[in-house]
């Protein structure tokens, strides 16, 4: 295992030639070649050059991670190229500058490559007029039902209406009517009247998801997006089409009519459903989560995420949440409510008294790097045997990992588990059976499903369990410490490829539940005397200084998209 942290390794690319172009009169140097939607280097397009020039080109159909369609016509720009004389040499103005021959026709910025000396005009009256025309065309048959549309607030029709819209419509004809509330698939509802036929969804599912299920039927203004007749639009990535739909045509059945988007607070976080660690935004309001949406990170998930991960958030608000610190006296059947202060000090005293070698720790690879680091401190002090539990499932070729733990590598790097995750569990079970192990500390796992059933647990002197939801294991515990879901705390995960990524706190934990790292810190201080940091930043930096696998990392240095360590 290497000890050096790196940013995402980049293949040593040959230096790309730069060329000079002008965007709205400002000269900039841009690479001659830039990555296209597949990442392949292709001639830089006008829209890429404008982006580098920090100039917004409005667009609907263009998406940097999809093949170019060029159909919305919103990104039309005017342009000119250096005029050539009959001798094929540039014609010069009297002041020595190159004379520019302005093209009589506009071009779509999304598909037109730049050339040296090109001038792109993104802001002329003619360009404005063309975009106004396009927007008017897009709106004439649009239902204008923003007040009941889920997209309102994040709708490109609304956004560009500010710049290119008209206050009143001159359209006096009957609108084209198309199917409403089309049940496109188990998770997607389509309103064809809102659709502007940009075909982003068609291209996504054909070229990214590899499920060529969507297409256009009918002709002209009656064009309608539809799934292949008799089939459902149902793959594990369908909800991405809702994200990339620039209007309110495709809506998520899970999110539609739930909340106006402008009320939502967005928090940078991670999906914890598998080892990929897709970057997400958690949208919440008043301590309630409403949705995950993917947050772009080209080193991990690009702009996409899977449907299963996206919808795996409701358990956080489950009725089954542990909200109280519970204690069950030895020999007694019922757990009674207690306080953190009591529980932590009693557990600390207990652990301090236990003979070396009589404790086992089973910590979930769903815990954060910081929490696993603190548990490793306890493990060392107590001479405990430790492990995590493997959770596996189906993988796919796009994003889903077979490893359903978000932080298996974090558990490995901190020494809680080993290359073969779960290999110590039989040893722990045996230790309990033989009476060698008297105290079991469990974090985030139901060990009754892992060969350590109620009969074995009954042999223990002390069973200390921290979890988020109530499980058979928590019900048998002497101490239950209610933990926080990852959206309720800060921390970091290390994904299957060694990407160390941090996540922020979106909502408060319910009741007395606390982030595990907070009370683990107290426990470690009491048991080992090590007074570590009481902030997540300090704790992460301390871990990075001590654990070789994280060497060189800092919390701040992780940024929004993380840093890759060698696994």
């Amino acid at each position, binding site marked *: 295992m290497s000890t050096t942290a790196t940013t995402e390794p980049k293949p040593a690319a040959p230096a790309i030639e730069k060329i000079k172009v002008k965007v709205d009169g400002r000269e900039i140097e841009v690479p001659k070649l830039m990555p296209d939607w597949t990442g392949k280097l292709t001639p830089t397009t006008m829209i890429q050059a404008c982006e580098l020039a920090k100039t917004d080109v409005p667009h609907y159909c263009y998406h940097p991670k999809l093949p170019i369609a060029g159909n919305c*016509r919103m990104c039309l720009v005017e342009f000119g190229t250096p005029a050539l004389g009959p001798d094929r040499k540039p014609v010069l103005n009297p002041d020595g500058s190159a004379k520019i021959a302005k093209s009589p026709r*506009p071009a779509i910025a999304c598909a037109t490559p730049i050339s040296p000396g090109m001038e792109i005009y993104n802001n002329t009256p003619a360009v404005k007029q063309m975009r106004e025309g396009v927007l008017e065309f897009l709106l004439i048959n649009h239902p204008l039902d923003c007040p009941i549309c889920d997209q309102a607030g994040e709708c490109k029709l609304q956004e560009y209406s500010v710049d290119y819209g008209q206050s009143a419509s001159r359209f*006096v004809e*009957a609108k084209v009517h198309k199917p409403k509330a089309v049940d496109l698939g188990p998770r997607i509802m389509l309103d064809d009247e809102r659709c502007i036929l940009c075909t982003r969804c068609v291209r996504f599912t054909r070229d990214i998801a590899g499920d060529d299920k969507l297409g256009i039927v009918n002709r*002209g*203004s009656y*064009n309608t997006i539809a799934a292949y007749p008799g089939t459902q639009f149902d793959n594990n990535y369908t909800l991405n089409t809702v994200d990339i739909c620039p209007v309110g045509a495709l809506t998520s059945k899970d999110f539609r009519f739930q909340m106006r988007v402008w009320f939502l607070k967005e928090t940078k976080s991670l999906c914890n459903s598998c080892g990929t660690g897709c970057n997400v935004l958690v949208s919440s309001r008043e301590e309630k989560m409403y949705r995950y949406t993917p947050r772009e990170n080209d080193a991990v998930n690009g702009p996409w995420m899977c449907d299963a991960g996206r919808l795996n958030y409701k358990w956080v608000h489950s009725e089954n949440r542990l909200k109280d610190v519970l204690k069950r006296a030895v020999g007694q059947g019922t757990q009674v409510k207690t306080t953190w202060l009591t529980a932590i000090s009693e557990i600390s005293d207990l652990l301090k008294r236990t003979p070396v070698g009589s404790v086992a720790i089973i910590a979930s690879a769903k815990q954060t790097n910081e929490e696993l680091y603190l548990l490793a401190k306890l493990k060392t002090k107590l001479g405990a045997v430790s492990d995590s539990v493997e959770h596996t499932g189906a993988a796919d070729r796009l994003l889903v990992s077979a490893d359903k733990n978000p932080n298996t590598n974090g558990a490995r790097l901190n020494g809680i588990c080993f290359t073969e995750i779960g290999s110590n569990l039989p040893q722990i079970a045996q230790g309990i059976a033989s009476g060698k192990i008297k105290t079991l500390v469990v974090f985030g796992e139901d060990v009754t499903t892992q060969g350590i059933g109620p009969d074995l647990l009954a042999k223990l002197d002390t069973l200390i369990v921290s979890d988020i939801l109530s499980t058979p294991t928590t019900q048998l515990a002497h101490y239950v410490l209610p933990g926080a879901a990852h959206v309720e705390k800060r921390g970091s995960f290390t994904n299957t490829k060694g990407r160390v990524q941090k996540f922020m706190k979106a909502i408060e934990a319910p009741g007395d539940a606390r982030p595990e790292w907070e009370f683990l810190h107290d426990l470690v201080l009491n048991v080992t005397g090590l007074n570590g940091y009481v902030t997540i930043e300090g704790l992460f930096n301390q871990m990075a200084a001590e654990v070789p696998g994280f060497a060189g990392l800092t919390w701040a240095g992780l940024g929004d998209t993380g840093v890759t360590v060698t696994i």
Partner: protein
Amino acid sequence: MPQEYKLILKHADEPGYTPDIDCYLRHGGYEGLKKALAIQPKDLPDGKKMSPQEQIREDVKVSGLRGRGGAGFSCGLKWSFVDRRSGKPIYLICNADESEPGTFKDRQIMHKDPHQLIEGMIISCFANDVHLAYIYIRGEMPEGAKILIKALAEARAKNFLGKNILGTGYDLEMYVHRGAGAYICGEETGLIESLEGKRPYPRIKPPYFPAVLGLWMCPTIVNNVETLCNVKHIVEMGGANFAKLGTPNNTGTRIVSLSGQVKRPGYYEIEVGKATLGELINDPKFGGGLRDGRKLKAIIPGGSSSKVLKAGEKFKLKKKDAEGREVLVETDMLDLPYDFDSLAQAGTMSGSSAIIVMDDSVDIVETLANLSEFYAHESCGQCTPCREGALWMNKALQRMAHGQGRAGDADYLVKIADNIPGGRTICAFGEACSWPVQSFVGKFKDEFVAKGVADEARRAKEVAAPGEIKQLAGAH
């Protein structure tokens, strides 16, 4: 006096002339192909050799042949754009998706003289190192497809197609592909998409120029039926001799489809530019004039998408005077020579060489409503301005045609139409659907306004009258 000049239709209408290969061979068929295949490499003064293929391509350039499909682009130049170094196969497609309203010339060739087209195609394929070619025929022409399929089988049986054609070692296969009935399949990149089995959405250019990234992303030549037939004659008579037909820069012959209110509608082959619009309409050898007692109102000179010409319109045409200087000569629309450049100077185009004549019995608003219905129905709907604009214009025009016009509708229509063409759309359909509206309303504005004013007055009366209340048709 203007004359018909039958080059392509030389035999087609002769009594007893049949579309089978024996008849074609009796009339000198496939001699052009044999001549092309027998061409020897030529030594150039600089010591290099010019291959037979290059010689044919050069001859087509010399002939000045311009595409007969609509745009009038130089055929030789089009061929010169073909990417011959990619290592990918080169395809040739015959665009037989003749569907521009008013046009019925290619159908004559395919129905009556299919082997002429096939021979022209084989020569063109040979000249461009093509080994697989398609005839993309309009879905609404099942008879033409049957005839062509039979003709291809005949040509194959005589080894004009297939492996080792006439023992020269040249292989070529050719297939007929039927469209499913969409005007947009006549647009070359839409045609290619359709041939690939997809919706005929025209491709964006750049990057998908057929000469580089055409059928299956390989270099592809798409030529019109009549254009490909001309290649056979260029090889037979020589490019320089072909260029003597017609007028400078407008060489060869064209088959004109003449329809509308003339006494003798039909198709007439003329030397390009050797007859004027007026002669084509009024000469007894051509249209034979309007019906008795009728006056000319308007002409659509090049298929329904070309801009209309109003009777009595005058244009300044560039001409060379006796001393070779360029002068502007005022020319009546009827005196416009029927060629590519003169009509372009008159702000319209000869397009697919389909002339639609309208006399004073025609209601201009209803005519435009009819045309716009076609374009609204045929817009593929891929890009925004054409998809939405074509139907919007049609709805407004249908409303006007049904007595629900408004005085301001003329300006309303032009404002819609102005937002469609000029590079705002992916293909030229944007122009095709908006030019008729721009030109009809522009040149006959008084009629559109008068109709709107009359409709408004009538509706005001109806509303004032007790009883029923009528609304604008379709208003919401």
